[in-house]
């Protein structure tokens, strides 16, 4: 029996050792990765942002609002923290991570829209959180979604990468080849889309009835108010931006966008927040400037950013 226990322990220890070493290498490699998934998180964690103007929002912020244009027109250092599929709780987790490791921004350009007070039950692209789940902020935020991380994923070495061979490969390549970087057309978090128009959003709404399940969810609303209060007390100037959507986009969602807009306007008034709404902008009628119903393509984004930068000039100057 002693022999069996000895060999079992030896087997277990060797496995544990290999798993721990591999996890260390993959984690370390991914923190050096410049891929779409990890660049923004890595910049935030490694104190590489320290922006004057921070852009916060979901995929519409990430794909549409360009720090390059804003920097050149406003002469500030801006950074786009937009996150794919990021509802407000996820955006706020990202902001918390940013504030823990970077200088407080002067301005936050908060993208708002019909989904501002909604929350999904699914975590979009949950892979992007995997290297950071040891951070209590990320762990707490992800715990509210169906794809929440389990105890083995949180505490067993390398198990968080179970069935994520792509991440293991990327992490190891980044770790061993210091020159290796994933291809990425991202600039300071801004990730424009070159793709031609497709019906992705309409199809998703049709397929997933729970995609945007409620107009205004009280817990999201409450988190949003806390966020507004936090900015006010910390002297961070918030600016609401409602980026253009294709003319029939809101009709596709089950959300009552007018109720959401009314609430946003009320908050803007209460907390003295400038509200730049482009929802009725002429861009909304140009399907050729969109990549789907709710995202401008690279050309549309360029036109929009010039409008936005122009409108922001007076606000930022004050």
């Amino acid at each position, binding site marked *: 029996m002693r022999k069996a226990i000895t060999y079992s322990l030896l087997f277990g220890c060797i*496995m544990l050792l290999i798993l721990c070493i591999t996890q260390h290498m993959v984690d370390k490699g991914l923190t050096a990765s410049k891929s779409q998934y990890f660049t923004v998180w890595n910049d935030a964690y490694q104190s590489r942002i320290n922006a004057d103007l921070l852009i916060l929002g979901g995929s519409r912020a990430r794909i549409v609002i360009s720090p390059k244009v804003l920097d050149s027109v406003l002469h500030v250092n801006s950074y786009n923290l937009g996150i794919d599929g990021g509802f407000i709780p996820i955006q706020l987790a990202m902001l918390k991570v940013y504030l823990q490791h970077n200088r407080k921004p002067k301005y936050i350009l908060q993208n708002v829209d019909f989904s501002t007070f909604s929350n999904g039950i699914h975590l979009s692209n949950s892979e992007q959180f995997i290297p950071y789940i040891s951070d209590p902020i990320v762990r707490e935020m992800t715990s509210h979604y169906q794809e929440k991380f389990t*105890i083995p994923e949180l505490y067993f070495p390398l198990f968080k990468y179970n*069935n994520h*061979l792509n991440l293991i490969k990327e992490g190891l390549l980044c770790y061993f080849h210091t020159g290796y970087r994933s291809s990425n057309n991202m600039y300071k978090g801004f990730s424009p889309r070159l793709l031609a128009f497709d019906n992705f959003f309409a199809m998703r709404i049709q397929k997933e009835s729970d995609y945007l399940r409620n107009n205004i969810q009280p817990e999201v609303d409450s988190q949003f108010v806390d966020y507004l209060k936090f900015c006010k007390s910390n002297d961070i100037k918030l600016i609401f931006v409602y980026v253009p959507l294709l003319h029939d986009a809101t009709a596709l969602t089950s959300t009552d966008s007018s109720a959401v807009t009314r609430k946003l306007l009320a908050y803007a008034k209460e907390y003295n927040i400038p509200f730049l709404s482009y929802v009725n902008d002429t861009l909304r009628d140009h399907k050729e400037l969109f990549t789907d119903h709710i995202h401008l393509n690279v050309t549309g984004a360029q036109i929009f950013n010039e409008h936005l930068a122009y409108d922001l000039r007076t606000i930022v100057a004050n």
Partner: protein
Amino acid sequence: MLFNSFEFLLFFPIVTIIYFLLPYKLRWFHLLVASCIFYMAFVPVYILILFATIVIDYAAGILIENAEGHKRRLWLIMSLVTNVGILVFFKYANFLSTNINALLHISDMSARIPLLKILLPIGLSFHTFQAMSYTIEVYRGNQKAERHFGIYALYVMFYPQLVAGPIERPQNLLHQFHTPHPFSYDDFVIGMRRVLWGLFKKCVIADRLGIIVDNIYNHPQQQSATALILGTVFFAFQIFCDFSGYSDIALGVARVMGFHLMVNFNKPYNAKSISEFWRKWHISLSTWLSDYVYTPLSVRFRDYGMKAVIVAAIVTFLISGFWHGAAWKYMVWGLLHGIAISYEIATRKFRKKLFKKIPEQAGRLISLFLTFSYVCFTYIFFRANSLRDALAVIKKLPSVFSEIGQAIRHRGVLTGQLLSGIPTMSLLVCIGYLLLLELAHRYEGRGSLMEMVGTKPRAVRWGIYFGMAFTIYLFGIFNSRQFIYFQF
């Protein structure tokens, strides 16, 4: 508690170490407690049902042994009726009510039998059959009644085979609980290898195939005939890896503690006939049905010659179908197997003559192909969510030829519309795993795979163990997907 859960990863070594540390006389009690904990991890209250059947069959065994004449038969019938009654109540009551209600509806009667809101106790069909085999064997005089209540309870509840078999016979298992099992390093190694191979089959192959199979079979109307065929073939391997994986783990876990359970699978898809398939697939059930249903029926009505054998075969497979689940689709599945066996019995001489005219290798390949195709065809009923879905799948199958023709013309065999919704990468990974499985089986053809591994140098052996362990850990699916046979 599932074998592929992290709870079991703790449970198994703790139970095993305590088992060997305890003096022999206390081991039965330890195993019984462990088995209760294992079973209660599913739905705790159902242990009471198990307890009731244990008490009844324990008493029935002693009463049968002590009685003489027709009283022996009476006690046996009492025990069988109780076991079957419990099985019918929990497994078939709602099925019967639903069908009676449908008949009442057709005959315009307003009366309805209310449906029961009960969950099927896990593994009910398995431990009921195991308990029944005990009283039947005592009645037949092949087994002495067990006087030790704890040991008898352990015979029914022994945790490695409690919820999905193998369905053991008292002659094979009971005496093992009376024998001391000193720790054996060889048993430990053989058992652990078997556990590792079982986990690999379940977590890495079966559950990955299951993702594709579920995608296809949850919306059969939206699938192409090619996808449905692929889904059915994948299901054949999914259910094999799932169930034989479970059996391997059960056998391995028991072996580590020194117990030898019966082998449940022997490369069933290498069978050259349906009769051979049933000698290689779920062996513990097919021998149970053969010993207690098929043989007694065909012997009793032997005066009717071939007719009796055919009727016995069909009745046996209808019972097998009904054993699997309370749904018409399982009955059809059983019936199809019964028909195939009957056909084989009736045409044995003719087929023998026919195959003499064909080269041996070609005949073998034709038999393998036909048997596997037929087994897959019957799986359509087994896997479909309903009889209606199964019929819809079958209706679609003939269009496979035109689909493939079109796909070849448009060069879209894998990624085109034929298999839309199935990621090409997942498909390739699954095919890769199946090739690996086939390779393992080919290797096994020259002896047991486990024994083969054991004869390799230590570095190779450990390399294989580490390779399998890492594959399970990193590419296994651990989303609490139950073993398919748990539902039976």
